[in-house]
């Protein structure tokens, strides 16, 4: 479960103060599928980065499964990112010099898993996204959709409970987008909590809960609906 209370993130750019997040309070139950939408610059990514422990809030409190994230050491935050959270980015964010296999393996290496365990997990993940025959391709030898599928495989290799996807289909054509969305739905069905940022209303509509953000504030929320 995720609990955000009164989260603020303020950037000082020169004289000007940018309130990227301006008092966000939000609770996401386990197994929910939440879509976040809103205009460009409204603070969606900022919120996602804070939830994903990539960034820290300036004010407010944040709990993951009852654990106060603000109190966690840098080490524990890294463990949190590694074990509980799986990221899917709009820009894929794969390491260009590593093969698909190695990219998926990387979080497992940081976890300290033994080689055999890593191998089964990597192969299982890549099979899930349908890339078992592209294991030794580098990102630049894969299409955009395939790259994003590698990123999905990497996110789910560690068996995280929370999947954060920041416009995962933003750079993809409709066919590839559909593939990725199907994968995300599968993950949801398997019991993962999904938070998805999107500009596409039809994609947002697929989620069980829609949250709209404007100027760093939540302006509408269809409410918790974990059943869908």
């Amino acid at each position, binding site marked *: 479960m995720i609990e955000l209370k009164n989260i603020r993130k303020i950037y000082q750019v020169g004289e000007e103060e940018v309130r990227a997040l301006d008092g966000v309070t939000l609770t996401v139950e386990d197994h929910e599928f939440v879509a976040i939408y809103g205009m460009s610059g409204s603070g969606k990514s900022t919120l996602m*980065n804070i939830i*994903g422990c*990539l*960034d820290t809030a300036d004010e407010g409190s944040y709990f993951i499964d009852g654990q106060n994230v603000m109190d966690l050491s*840098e*080490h524990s935050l*890294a*463990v949190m*990112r*590694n*074990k509980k959270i799986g*990221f899917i980015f709009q820009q894929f*964010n*794969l*390491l260009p*010099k590593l093969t698909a296999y190695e990219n998926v393996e*990387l*979080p497992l*290496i*940081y*976890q*300290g898993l*033994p*080689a055999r365990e890593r191998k089964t997990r990597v192969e299982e993940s890549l099979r899930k996204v349908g890339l078992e025959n592209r294991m030794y391709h580098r990102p630049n030898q894969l299409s955009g959709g395939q790259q994003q599928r590698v990123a999905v495989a*990497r996110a789910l290799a*560690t068996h995280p409970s929370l999947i954060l996807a920041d416009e995962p289909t933003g750079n993809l054509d409709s066919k590839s987008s559909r593939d990725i969305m199907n994968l995300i739905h599968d993950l949801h069905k398997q019991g993962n909590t999904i938070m998805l940022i999107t500009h596409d209303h039809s994609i947002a509509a697929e989620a069980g809960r829609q949250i709209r953000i404007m100027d760093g504030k939540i302006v509408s929320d269809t409410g918790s609906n974990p059943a869908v």
Partner: protein
Amino acid sequence: MKLRQSIKMAISAVFSNKMRSFLTMLGIIIGVLSVTLLISIVQSGTGTITDAMSTLGGDQITVSITGNQKRLLYYELDSLKSNENITALAPYISGRSTAKAGNHSKEVNIYGVTKEYFSINNLKLTNGRFLSELDREYSLQVCVIGAEVAKELFPYGDGVNQTIRIQGKDFRIVGILEEEDEYAMNSNNQRIFIPLTNAQRIFQQMGITNLVLTSENKTTLKRAQSDLADFLKAKFTEKDSYTIINMSEIMDMMGTVMNTLSLMLGGIAGISLLVGGIGIMNIMLVSVTERTREIGIRKAIGAQRSDITIQFMIESIFISLMGGMIGMLLSIVILHVLNLFVTEVHFVISPSVALLALSFSIAVGLIFGIYPANKAARLKPINALRYE
């Protein structure tokens, strides 16, 4: 296990940019090459020179008397012989003369010696015996000859008991010396040794012109030197009519000079290692900046600060160690080539120099890698990810 992965990643990062890695290594290669090469050359050279000197008598004092107002006579040496600091004393005189045997003849150095000469200089025989005290006392016309002399005057066989004619006198050969390595000037191969008394007569020279003496150890040798100086001062009023040379002092002095020299050269070459290290730091900093996004991604999927530090440290240590090993190999190759052309000195890298250079290059990688590695590890994941 995690370390193995880090090493694998670091190595593949180094190899993924071969040209840059090589250029970075170049500083270390040149540094290690110059350090090992210079120190090895100086050390090998010193070794050869001191070896040569110690075969010439590293633990001896030699005296040569040049003044001719006064003469040092044989019996006057008795007081020196009984000196407790002097183990052995060998007086001798020498001159050049023609030596004939059968129809062979040869210009040689004739040495008039006592029996001590042979033991002090550690000479060895192939045949026969050395000169004895009796030979000197009774001026027996006997001689011991150097290996070269034996070869030239008796090319077809053993010369023992044959005679050699020197200045109209026949000397019976009683011993033949083993052949010695030719160290520049001072080899006994070309010499004929006859009893001191005979030489005094032949060369019309009663005064002793040379002394060699040895002592128990370095300290007694020092004392012997000062006793000798007192003795000679009392005998010859003029100071420049004699010269005392303490070989061990000269060798010590040379050792110090050579050590200072190799330290200095090593230091100068060490500066190039330092420059190489700065080169590594420079490239690693560039690499950190270039790979900011990569660092962000790694952190986003759960890399610890230490994972990133270790990765970059291993990279810089790997580069400098590779550079160090290449530099070392190059200097081994160069020394081998030098050995083909220079026969007087055998150049080798001593293990301590090799170890020093390698540990130095690891240290360079470590020291100059710490800052960039830490800089990379400290990046906030979000800032690193956002970096363009």
